[in-house]
C-alpha cells in the first residue's frame, strides 16, 4: 500500500456531498431565525436539487472517463456510488415532501428538522462513496447521529423517545463492532482501503487469513445492524414504529440504501478473498431475514409495524443480491431505487390515513378507502402490489433481478426460500387491499389532505409503474461506466 505521488483530490467528486453539506449548514443558521419549518424545507429541497444536478454532471464526466476516485481510492465516484447517490437524493426529497404538511398537523414543525435530514443524507452519500473502512465509519456516524435525534422528534411521547434511545444504543453497539472489525482487518492487512486489503490478502504468503476473516465478520455484523439483517434487525420494528412516520419514511429508504451500498461493495470486493465461511454465514443470515421479516409482518395488525417488518423482509431480498457479489451490484442499485419509490409511497398514504399523533394505523382505518378516496386507495394498491412483487410493477422487476443474481451465483435454495416467502408477503400486502376495497368502514374517519404529500405519492406511483414497464432505462444506467472501482 502506498500513496500516489501527489494526493489526488479531484474535488469534483465531492460536489454532490458538499452541496448537501453546505445547504445543511446554511439551513441550520437560517433556522435560528425561523419558527416554522416551511422555509427550511424549501431551502433543503433546493440543496437536494443542486446536489442532484452536480451528480448528473459527475455521472456524465464519469461516463466520459474521468477519474472516479479521490484520495487514493478512499472516496469513490464509480457507477454504483453515483447511481445510489441518485437513490438517496430521491428518497430525501420524497421524505421532505411527505414531512411538509405532516409536521404541522402533528405539531412537530421545528425548523431544525430539515437540516438534520440533510446531514443524515450527507452521511449516507459518504457511506455510498466510501472506498475504505474509515470513510465508511465517518459516513455511518454522520448519517446515524442525525437520525437518532430525528427518531425522538416527538418530545414527550414515550414511543418516540424509546425509539430514539433504542436506536441510539443499538446503533452505537453496531458502530463499536464495526470499529472492532476495522481494527482487526487493519491488523491483519495493514490497510483500511478495500483495494489494498484485497491485494494484501491475495499476496503470496499472506499470514493471517483467520484474523482478517474475523475482522470481515465483525464489519459484516456492524453493517447488518444498519441494514436490519436478522438477527440484528430487532431495533428496526420498534424504531420504525415509534419514530414519527415522516422520519420512518426517511429511515426506511435512505439508511437502507446507504447500508446496502456499503455492504454490497465490501461483499463484492473484500469478502471473496476471505475464508469461505464468511459468505456462508451471510447466506444463513439472509435466509433468516427472509423468513423472520415476512412471518413477523404477517402477524401485525398495525400497518406501520407491518411496513416496518416488510422493510426487514426487503433487506432479505436485497441480501440475495449482496450474496451474488460483483454480479449483484446492479441488482442492488436497481432494487433500491424501486424500493425507495414504493416504500415512500406506502408510508405517505399511511400518513394521510392515520392520526396526527401516529395512532390509528390499524387495518380498520383502511376499510372502505376505495370508496371514500378512490385515488389514494388506487395508489396504495399499486404500492402494495409492487412491494408484493406482482408484475408489471417495479417490485416484480426488482425481485426478478435479485433472484436471477442469486440463482446465477449458485444460491438456488435461498432463491427458492425467497420466492416462497414472497407468497407469505403477498398475504399481508393483500390484506391492506382487501380492507380498502372489500370492507365498509365501521365509523367516520378523518380525511387528511396534503398537496405536498400528494406530489410525493403520485411521483412514487408513476415511478413504480414506469420502472416496472421500462426496467431497461435505470438498468442501463446502473450498468454503464465503471463498476466497482475498489476492485483491482
Amino acid at each position, binding site marked *: 500500500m502506498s500513496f500516489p505521488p501527489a494526493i489526488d483530490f479531484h474535488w469534483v467528486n465531492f460536489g454532490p456531498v458538499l452541496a448537501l453539506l453546505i445547504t445543511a449548514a446554511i439551513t441550520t443558521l437560517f433556522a435560528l431565525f425561523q419558527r416554522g419549518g416551511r422555509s427550511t424545507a424549501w431551502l433543503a429541497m433546493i440543496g437536494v436539487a443542486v446536489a442532484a444536478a452536480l451528480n448528473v454532471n459527475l455521472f456524465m464526466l464519469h461516463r466520459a472517463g474521468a477519474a472516479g476516485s479521490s484520495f487514493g481510492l478512499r472516496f469513490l465516484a464509480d457507477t454504483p456510488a453515483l447511481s445510489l447517490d441518485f437513490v438517496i437524493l430521491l428518497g430525501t426529497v420524497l421524505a421532505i415532501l411527505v414531512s411538509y404538511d405532516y409536521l404541522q398537523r402533528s405539531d412537530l414543525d421545528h425548523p431544525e428538522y430539515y437540516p438534520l435530514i440533510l446531514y443524515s443524507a450527507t452521511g449516507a452519500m459518504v457511506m455510498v462513496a466510501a472506498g475504505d473502512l474509515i470513510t465508511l465509519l465517518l459516513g455511518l456516524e454522520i448519517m446515524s447521529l442525525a437520525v437518532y435525534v430525528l427518531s425522538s422528534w416527538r418530545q414527550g411521547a414515550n414511543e418516540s423517545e424509546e425509539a430514539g434511545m433504542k436506536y441510539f444504543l443499538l446503533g452505537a453497539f453496531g458502530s463499536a463492532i464495526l470499529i472492532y472489525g476495522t481494527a482487526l482487518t487493519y491488523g491483519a492487512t495493514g490497510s483500511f482501503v478495500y483495494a489494498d486489503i484485497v491485494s494484501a490478502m491475495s499476496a503470496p504468503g499472506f499470514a493471517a487469513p483467520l484474523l482478517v476473516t474475523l475482522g470481515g465478520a465483525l464489519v459484516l455484523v456492524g453493517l447488518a445492524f444498519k441494514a436490519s439483517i436478522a438477527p440484528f434487525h430487532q431495533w428496526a420494528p420498534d424504531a420504525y414504529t415509534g419514530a414519527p412516520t415522516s422520519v420512518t419514511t426517511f429511515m426506511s429508504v435512505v439508511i437502507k440504501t446507504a447500508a446496502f451500498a456499503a455492504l454490497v461493495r465490501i461483499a463484492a470486493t473484500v469478502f471473496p478473498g476471505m475464508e469461505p465461511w464468511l459468505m456462508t454465514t451471510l447466506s444463513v443470515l439472509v435466509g433468516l431475514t427472509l423468513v423472520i421479516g415476512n412471518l413477523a409482518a404477517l402477524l401485525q395488525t398495525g400497518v406501520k409495524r407491518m411496513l416496518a417488518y416488510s422493510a426487514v423482509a426487503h433487506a432479505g431480498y436485497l441480501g440475495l443480491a449482496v450474496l451474488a457479489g460483483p454480479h449483484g451490484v446492479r441488482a442492488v442499485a436497481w432494487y433500491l431505487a424501486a424500493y425507495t419509490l414504493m416504500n415512500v409511497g406506502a408510508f405517505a398514504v399511511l400518513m394521510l390515513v392515520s392520526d396526527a399523533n401516529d395512532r390509528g394505523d390499524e387495518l380498520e382505518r383502511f376499510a372502505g378507502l376505495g370508496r371514500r378516496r378512490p385515488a389514494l386507495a388506487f395508489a396504495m394498491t399499486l404500492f402494495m402490489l409492487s412491494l408484493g412483487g406482482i408484475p408489471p410493477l417495479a417490485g416484480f422487476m426488482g425481485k426478478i*433481478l435479485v433472484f436471477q443474481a442469486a440463482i446465477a451465483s449458485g444460491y*438456488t435454495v435461498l432463491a427458492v426460500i425467497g420466492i416462497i416467502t414472497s407468497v407469505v408477503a403477498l398475504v399481508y400486502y393483500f390484506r391492506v387491499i382487501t380492507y380498502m376495497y372489500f370492507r365498509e368502514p365501521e365509523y367516520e374517519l378523518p380525511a387528511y389532505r396534503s398537496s405536498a404529500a400528494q406530489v410525493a405519492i403520485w411521483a412514487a406511483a408513476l415511478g413504480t409503474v414506469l420502472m416496472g414497464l421500462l426496467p431497461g432505462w435505470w*438498468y*442501463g444506467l446502473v450498468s454503464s461506466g465503471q463498476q466497482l472501482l475498489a476492485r483491482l
Partner: protein
Amino acid sequence: MIALFVVLVPVVFAVVTGLAGSRRVAAVGFGLVSTLTTFVLTLFLPGSAGISTPWIPGLGVTFTLEPTGAGSVLTIVAALAMIPTALMAARRVEEGPGAFVALLLLMQGALAGIFLARDLVLFYVAWEAALIPSMLMLGAFGRDRRRAAVLKYLVYAIGGSFVMLISILAIRPLSGAASYRFADLIAATPNLAGATQVWLFIGLAIGMAVKLPLWPLHNWLIDFNEQNHPSGAADVAGTLYKVGGFGFFAWAIPLLPLGMERIGPILLGLSVFTALYGALAAVAQTDMKRLLAYASLSHMGIVGVGIFGLHLAGLNGAIFLLAAQMLSTGGLFLVSGMLFARRNSFDLDRYGGLARSAPALAALSLFVLFTFIGVPGLANFPGEFLSLLGAYQLHPWAAALATLSVIVAGVYGVNFFQRLYQGEEREPTREIGALEVFALIPLVAGILWLGIFPSPQLSRIEAQSQLIAAPAATATAEASSALASVPAAPPARPGDLLAPSAVPGEGPVAPDAPLGGSR
C-alpha cells in the same frame, strides 16, 4: 406490430374508462369501442409480424410478442367473447360500471399478452397481470361470501404462479440460453439434464395446473364462479383466464420434453379424473353457477387429456376446445346472468317452465347449451372429438374413461335445461330483451363459425402443434429415426385432419404416422 396494439388498445381504454368516472354512458361507450376495435385488430393477427425488443438487456429479458398459430386463434376468440361481456357488464353492474369495465379491459389486455408473448418472462408478467383485475372484480363486485372466495383464489393462483416463477427464473441460467425468448430457450434446453428438466417441469406444471385447472388444484374455481358478480361478466373473464392448458402447450411441454416424459402420465391421469369428477359433480348441483363451474371443469379435463395425450390431433383439438369453450361457457354464464336479472336467484329449484313465456330466450339458451355439451356442428364438438380421439391413439384407456364424461355431460345438460325452461311454469317472466339479443349475437355467430368451419383455425393451431408434438414425441418415442422424419412430413391439409388420425396408421403419408407408428 398488430400484436402490440391488440395488447395496448384495451389497456389504454381501461385507463380512459377508469378516469371517466361512474357514468354508465361512458362505460358502455368505451367498453364497446374498445372491444370492437380490438376484435377487428385481432382478425389481422394471423401471419402478421411480431415485435421483439430488449426489455432488461443484462438479463436477456425481451419484450417479444408474436402471433403464433394457437396464440392468435385464442386471442381472436377471446376478443370476440369480450364484446358481449363488456356490454353486459356496463349495463348490469349497479354501482361503478366504469370501474368494472375498466377491469375487464385490463384483463383483456393481459390475456392477449399471455397468448401472444414469446418471451417467457413477459408471458409470466402477463399471466400475473391478469390476476389483479380478476381478483378486484371478484372482491369489489362479488356476492356476499366473496371475501373467502378471494382468499382461496389468491392462495391457489399466487402459490402456483410463484412456484412457476422459480422454474422460469432458473431455466435460462441453467440451460445457458441467450435470452428468455422462446426461440433461444428451445435451442438451449436440450442441454439440461433429465432430472433438472423434471424439477423445472414440476414447477411450471404446478402453476399451470392451477389455471388449467386440474384436480386437486381446481378448488378455487367453484367459489370463484359462484361468488362473482351475478351479471356473469366476470365469470366470462374467468373462463378466458383458464390459460393453463395453453401454458403447457406453448411453453412447458416444448421446452422440457424430458420433464413431460416423466410427469406427463401423471398429468394425463389427473386430467381424466378431472373430466369425470367435474361432470359427476355437475350433475349433483342445484346452483346454476356451481353447475356451470363444475361442468366447465370437466371440459378442462378433456383439454388436459388432449394435451397430455401428446398426439397431434389431440393437441389441435385441445387448443380448439379451449377457444370454443370461451364462447360456449362464456355464453352460458351470460345466460345465467340474464336469468338472475329476472328472478334474483341462481337456485335451479326456483325456476321452471320459462320456455312458455320466454321462448326465444329458451331457444338461444338451448343453442349455447348444445354447443357446451358437444353437439356436432357447433363449436365445442371438433375440439372435444379431436382431443379424445388423439389421446385414444396413444392412451386408449385414458381416453375411453374421459369419454364417459361426455355422456354425463348429456345428463347435466338436459337437467340444466329442463329445470330452467321446462315443466310447470310458476310465474311468467320477461322475454329476451334487445340488450340480451345483442349480447348473444356475437357468441352465436362465433359458435357457428367455429363449428361449421373448424378447419382454418385447426390448421393454424396445427402449425404450432407440429413443432411441439415433435420434441414431445422424442420423449416418448423409442425410435429416434421417427423424430427425424417429422419435419419432413408434408403439412396436413386442413381437410385431412380428421381422416388420418381417425384410423391410426392407415395412410402411410399421414402427418402423424411417425408418432403413431413409433408406438
